[in-house]
């Protein structure tokens, strides 16, 4: 105990280098602690979000609620830019009807309570277009208890017509807080764990670099303490006590950082998820674990620093580790990761994601032992010649581990950045087109019966938007028996529109087409019932010719009947279709606001109509890319500082040698070049490795997500450029002045 | 150091004629004052009388040059006693000490031991001075320091010489 206290005492150093060392280690620990605390908060965050969403859940899951103290609800799920809009049209059937969470009172007909974010958007630019989707009078704001997050777009609108739509678009609820389906899988935790692991790696490397900085002074100090009678275990305890200080300070600073981030949490959004700061609380057990991990991490890095080191009363002896250049064990992680990734690389249809994920992580880790092997190799392969390179190359070959420690972190970070950037690049290329080229960009499915003329008019309405081609059909679902799973469609539309849905030889009004074995007659599924109920019987016209559905329809449909308007029997014309479907195709000349305009038009036709964007309207990786850039910037910065510390301390260690070189008349440029080369060659070699592995990793990710493998030079080179710029800046900016100082023979006098 | 001791040391190396003895003495011990022949023969006579050397006349008749002198056991003891006895720590004792070193080298004895003995003698003196100095007042200190610094210089010369003994031995034996 006394030794720990002494260690703590010793961590408050005298001298600039000592302070720098403590400050750097503290910063590293702080970043790690903040990240870990945030990670520890993710479960609470998700749970709180889940709880909010459960509290307002109104999905009765197919169960009919009898009228009584009930509220009629209709859902309008929509989209505005990258934000999902959750709309609810409600109408109370009695004064005792349940009030949705966060809503102070029932809105009157055509009035709404809107979330703060939605109100802001309505007031913002282009708000008029958005307003067409929800043309209700705003009478108040939804309280946080009714929102999943501060940035959620949501509204509750009074809508009397919903009364008449029960069973075909609206439903009754007697309370809020139904069980939500589609729970989040365990995957979320796995992802969070993987993220933290990859984050912790550079943090640990950084802390290690910080602790190594000025290790020589610490070594001398410990030897001095050993001389006056501390045994080797006591010295270790002292060193551990010393590491407690950056750990403690770092924990405090990390908690502060965490609180700051938490305070700003309302401004952050990721994947359409926003979080209330109040929901960011670490799980108590995990928070304790974070403290333990941080302490263990700094203690572990300290102990690791003592590996192969004997602190003796007469000094610190490093067991001369003869450089073990053997390659095979360095290749083991690489081999293991390749084995894990093998199904993906071989192009297997359904690769096991966990296995592949593990392989990806392992591939990144596999770099770590490879870099120290690579550097002496490069040093050997590069042609000799100048005196400065000779000096540098000798040093690199003799002690590659020391020369590459800091570089390894940069290589790992750059590799990850390249992989993810190339992946996101390729993924965003895909977004412009729907999965199936035959599919429309948007589909509106509206309830109600429409005459052929009305359908043509609806088509024309949507074609007003620039670059949009549309077509409207009435779609009936075929009844296949009470338990039938196979689906079929009966589609009514004009020839031009039918052509968008199916392929057939030719078409004129009065033609009919069939796909599959329909039998002599087909029966539609009656609307207005939750249980499957047979509706209208339709005879298959005698002259029906074969047709094939195209696009996504073709996948789910095995039988189908397509009718042009004039051959539609009267019985069918009277029956209500499952929905009237307007299909919208987006040309290249469509403006970016097309989706918003189309949604507005659709809401004007029927707010309860289902509007689906088949091609994503926005780059859903955009926010992730920002996070990635931010993350890699932070990591690269840390690595840069780590490199700086490392270079500075190595320079410090060898200042005598350099001074002697300068004193015996080596030209200053020779000495400085040798120092520069020593710093740069490992980085360049490491970056080359990073490009190779990063591109490979990107390809793996693309394969896994079934994105066409595609590389853009900028995605590959940007992280490399940033990484090397960082290295250049640190070496040139810090190393050169330091080297100049060292090489002035002045220094020697004090030796 | 006396001529007699020097002769004994020279004879311990090997039996010699009187003429050779004079030459060797002049080379190692005389500095710029060579011996007279008269001194050589009176010294040798004295040594003979004390039984420290014997003579084995080769020719037997024609003068001292024909006589070869050999050291006796008593003579060897005398040399040993001489070498073992440290010189009194004094200010300018180098010449005496130097003679002893040469003597040790000539007789194949340990010159280092000579120096060690001398060092110890010096140190004893220095310890005594240090004790006096610690006990005394400032004036005592300064006086003792004077002596101490001189003895220290002697010792450093001794130490220096000790490191050169091997080279010196080669030269002396040549």
């Amino acid at each position: 105990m006394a030794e720990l206290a002494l260690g703590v005492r010793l961590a408050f150093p005298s001298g600039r280098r000592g302070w720098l060392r403590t400050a750097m280690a503290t910063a590293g620990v702080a970043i790690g602690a903040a990240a870990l605390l945030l990670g520890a908060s993710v479960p609470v965050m998700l749970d709180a979000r889940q709880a909010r969403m459960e509290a307002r859940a109104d999905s009765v899951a197919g169960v009919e609620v009898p009228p009584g103290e009930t509220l009629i609800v209709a859902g309008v799920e929509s989209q505005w830019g990258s934000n999902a809009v959750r709309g609810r049209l409600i109408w109370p059937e009695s004064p005792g009807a349940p009030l949705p969470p966060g809503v102070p009172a029932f809105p009157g007909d055509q009035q709404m309570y809107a979330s703060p974010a939605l109100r802001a958007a309505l007031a913002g630019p282009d708000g008029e277009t958005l307003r067409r989707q929800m043309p209700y009078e705003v009478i108040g704001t939804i309280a946080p208890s009714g929102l999943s997050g501060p940035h959620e777009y949501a509204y509750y609108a009074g809508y009397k017509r919903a009364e008449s739509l029960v069973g075909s678009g609206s439903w009754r609820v007697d309370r809020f807080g139904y069980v939500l389906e589609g729970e989040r899988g365990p995957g979320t935790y796995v992802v969070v764990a993987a993220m933290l692991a990859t984050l912790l790696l550079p943090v640990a490397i950084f802390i290690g670099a910080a602790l190594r900085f000025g290790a020589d002074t610490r070594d001398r100090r410990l030897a001095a303490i050993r001389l006056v009678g501390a045994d080797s275990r006591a010295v270790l305890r002292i060193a551990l006590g010393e590491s407690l200080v950056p750990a403690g300070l770092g924990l405090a600073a990390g908690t502060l950082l965490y609180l700051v981030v938490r305070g700003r949490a309302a401004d952050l959004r990721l994947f359409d998820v926003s979080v209330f700061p109040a929901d960011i609380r670490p799980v108590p057990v995990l928070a304790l674990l974070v403290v333990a991990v941080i302490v263990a991490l700094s203690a572990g890095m300290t102990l690791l620093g003592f590996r192969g080191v004997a602190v003796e009363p007469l000094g610190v002896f490093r067991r001369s580790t003869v450089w073990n250049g053997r390659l095979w064990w360095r290749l083991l992680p690489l081999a293991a990761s390749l084995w894990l990734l093998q199904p993906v690389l071989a192009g297997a249809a359904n690769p096991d994601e966990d296995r592949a994920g593990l392989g990806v992580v392992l591939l990144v880790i596999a770099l770590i032992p490879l870099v120290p092997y690579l550097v002496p190799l490069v040093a050997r392969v590069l042609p000799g010649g100048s005196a400065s390179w000779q000096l540098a190359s000798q040093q690199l070959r003799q002690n590659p581990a020391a020369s590459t420690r800091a570089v390894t972190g940069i290589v790992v970070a750059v590799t990850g950045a390249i992989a993810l950037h190339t992946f996101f690049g390729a993924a965003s290329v895909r977004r412009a087109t729907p999965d199936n080229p035959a599919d429309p960009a948007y589909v509106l499915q509206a309830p109600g019966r429409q005459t052929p003329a009305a359908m043509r008019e609806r088509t024309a309405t949507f074609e007003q938007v620039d670059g949009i081609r549309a077509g409207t059909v009435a779609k009936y679902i075929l009844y296949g028996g009470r338990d039938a799973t196979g689906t079929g469609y009966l589609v009514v539309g004009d020839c031009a529109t039918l052509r968008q849905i199916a392929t057939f030889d030719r078409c004129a009004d009065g033609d009919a087409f069939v796909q599959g074995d329909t039998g002599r007659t087909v029966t539609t599924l009656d609307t207005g019932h939750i249980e499957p109920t047979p509706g209208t019987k339709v005879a298959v016209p005698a002259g029906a010719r074969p047709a094939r559905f195209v696009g996504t329809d073709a996948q789910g449909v095995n039988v189908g009947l397509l009718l042009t308007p004039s051959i539609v029997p009267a019985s069918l014309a009277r029956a209500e279709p499952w929905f009237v479907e307007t299909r919208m195709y987006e040309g290249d000349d469509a403006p970016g606001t097309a989706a918003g305009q189309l949604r507005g038009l659709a809401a004007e036709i029927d707010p309860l109509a289902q509007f689906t964007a088949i091609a994503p309207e926005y780059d859903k990786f955009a926010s992730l890319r920002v996070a990635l850039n931010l993350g890699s910037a932070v990591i690269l910065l840390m690595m840069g500082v780590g490199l700086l510390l490392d270079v500075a301390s190595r320079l410090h260690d060898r200042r005598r040698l350099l001074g002697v070189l300068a004193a015996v008349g080596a030209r200053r440029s020779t000495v400085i070049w040798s120092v520069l080369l020593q710093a740069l060659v490992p980085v360049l070699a490491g970056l080359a490795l990073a490009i190779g592995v990063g591109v490979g990793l990107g390809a793996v990710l693309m394969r896994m997500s079934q994105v066409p493998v595609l590389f853009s030079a900028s995605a590959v080179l940007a992280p490399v450029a940033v990484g090397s710029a960082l290295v250049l800046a640190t070496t040139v900016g810090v190393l050169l002045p330091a080297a100049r100082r060292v090489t002035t023979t002045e220094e020697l006098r004090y030796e | 150091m006396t001529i007699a001791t020097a002769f004994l040391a020279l004879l311990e190396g090997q039996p010699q004629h009187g003429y050779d003895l004079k030459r060797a003495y002049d080379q190692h011990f005389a500095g710029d004052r060579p011996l007279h022949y008269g001194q050589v023969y009176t010294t040798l006579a004295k040594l003979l009388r004390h039984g420290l050397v014997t003579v084995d006349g080769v020719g037997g008749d024609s003068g001292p040059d024909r006589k070869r002198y050999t050291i006796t056991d008593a003579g060897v003891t005398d040399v040993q006693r001489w070498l073992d006895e440290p010189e009194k720590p004094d200010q300018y004792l180098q010449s005496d000490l130097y003679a002893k070193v040469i003597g040790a080298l000539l007789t194949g004895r340990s010159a280092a031991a000579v120096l060690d003995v001398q060092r110890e003698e010096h140190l004893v003196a220095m310890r005594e001075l240090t004790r006096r100095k610690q006990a005394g007042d400032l004036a005592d200190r300064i006086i003792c320091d004077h002596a101490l610094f001189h003895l220290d210089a002697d010792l450093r010369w001794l130490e220096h010489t000790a490191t050169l003994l091997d080279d010196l031995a080669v030269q002396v034996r040549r």
Partner: protein
Amino acid sequence: MTAGVRAEGGSMSTLLDAQGLHKAYGPTTALAGADLRVRAGEIVSVMGPSGSGKSTLLHCAAGLTRPDAGHVGYDGQELSMLDDVRRSALRRREFGFVFQFGQLVPELTALQNVALPLRLDGVSRRTAERRATGLMDRLGLADKARSRPGELSGGQQQRVAVARALVTGPRVIFADEPTGALDSVAGEQVMEMLTTAAREAGAAVVLVTHDARVAAYADRGIVVRDGRSSERMGVR
């Protein structure tokens, strides 16, 4: 001959007895059969040219270095048979060290440096610092207690080291060129304080030096040359 009056007082028992020490560093032979015998309370100087193995002899005798061959007996126990914990305890309680430089902890104040061996031995901070203060007062360091080693002159640093070596009431103090980095006045001061304090405390001192004026503070001396010691001197 008046030499070694104190040393020859046969009643004093041998405290530390190193015999036939051999030590090689790779191809270099540092010790080739060196002896060192220290009786309780006496001050023994170890002289010899540089590189002759003086420091190595001291290190072996203090159990800091394990000799390749030979024995080091201290107070009836064989040092090389003790494990690190026991040897560390010995350094803490029975031995004190004053080296040429670098043995003070720069982060600690002079007082904390002096109190360090006691603190390591589990003595309470109060007691440790009280004892350290007393000793520092006697060594003329009263006003330097709060200074860090970096703020002290070389002589003051060495006096702090002397105080630290003495604070646990050791039986042997190992001093390796304690004045090596000092000018002659400061060196004399340090030597005077070291020897006086050691005598008062009854501690033996092994004083490694190449400087005869420093060695003159000893009761007797041995010489190391080429890794061999001449114990015969002074016990003649």
